[in-house]
């Protein structure tokens, strides 16, 4: 039991990362769009787990609320509205799939080599700032003091998006 706990506490992040990559591939390669949405939901939940492991409890909770609670529901509604069954007989991928895959693999490999060459320094043994009084209190203190202006701009952005989404989807009335 002890060995199992220590194994999981050491490798939990790697396990979460592997599962996240699997479900992310599921999003891209699913034949059925509903399966893609379910895979996206699983990806978001697993990413929230990664945030938890990195001392960001508040971000993990926001991730679950915004993505799993909001965005996934939007996608499901959209799947209900558009008739995807008409497109089922058609081919799934673009014509340049192999070229795209090669280019992306090249990009990932080059950047991985660059990352491994960078001197990031050792891990901080203890973090103090981001866990002071719990991640929520620390984030709130910074968000409402130092970053109050971007916060207000974000609220204006959300208002504009709300109006824009309504205008884009409502029926045009001839006047």
């Amino acid at each position, binding site marked *: 039991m002890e060995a199992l706990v220590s194994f999981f506490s050491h490798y939990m*992040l*790697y396990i979460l990362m592997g599962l*996240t*990559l699997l479900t*992310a591939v599921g*999003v*891209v390669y699913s034949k059925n*769009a509903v399966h*893609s*949405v379910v895979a*996206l939901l699983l990806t*978001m939940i697993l*990413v929230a787990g*990664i945030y938890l492991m990195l*001392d*960001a409890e*508040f*971000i993990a909770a*926001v991730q679950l609320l*915004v993505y799993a609670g909001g*965005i996934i529901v939007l*996608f499901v509604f*959209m799947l209900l*509205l*558009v008739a995807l069954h*008409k*497109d089922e007989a*058609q*081919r799934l*991928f*673009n014509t*340049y*799939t192999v070229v*795209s*895959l090669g280019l*992306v693999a090249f990009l*990932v490999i080059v*950047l*991985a080599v660059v*990352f*491994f060459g*960078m001197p*990031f*320094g050792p*891990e*901080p043994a203890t973090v103090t*700032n*981001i866990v002071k009084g719990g*991640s929520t209190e620390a*984030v709130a203190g*910074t*968000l409402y003091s130092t*970053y109050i202006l971007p916060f207000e701009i*974000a609220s204006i*952005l*959300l208002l504009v*998006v709300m109006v824009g*989404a309504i205008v*884009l*989807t409502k029926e045009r009335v001839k006047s």
Partner: protein
Amino acid sequence: MIPVTHMLVFSMILFGIGVTGVLIRRNALIMLMSLELMMNAANINLIVFARQLDSLAGQVFAIFVMCVAASEVAIGLAIIAALFKNKETVQIDYLNDLKG
């Protein structure tokens, strides 16, 4: 805790999967989902560096990124709804009216 480099490579691969989805899929909904994957990869980087540098700016900006991602999905899905109303399809290669 694991090295920063491993997390960076992981988020790079996640971003690459998102780019692949945008490049190879023909369904506009799946392309939007792949965009979400790329946003999440960027967010993971922000959180990793917030921990590495012991600074809260990374976590705060992750919240802003989520805000922008949610806005982008709302507008993107509204555009797809409007497109579907006009063209009866969400396959992007039928949306070629601007082609000469």
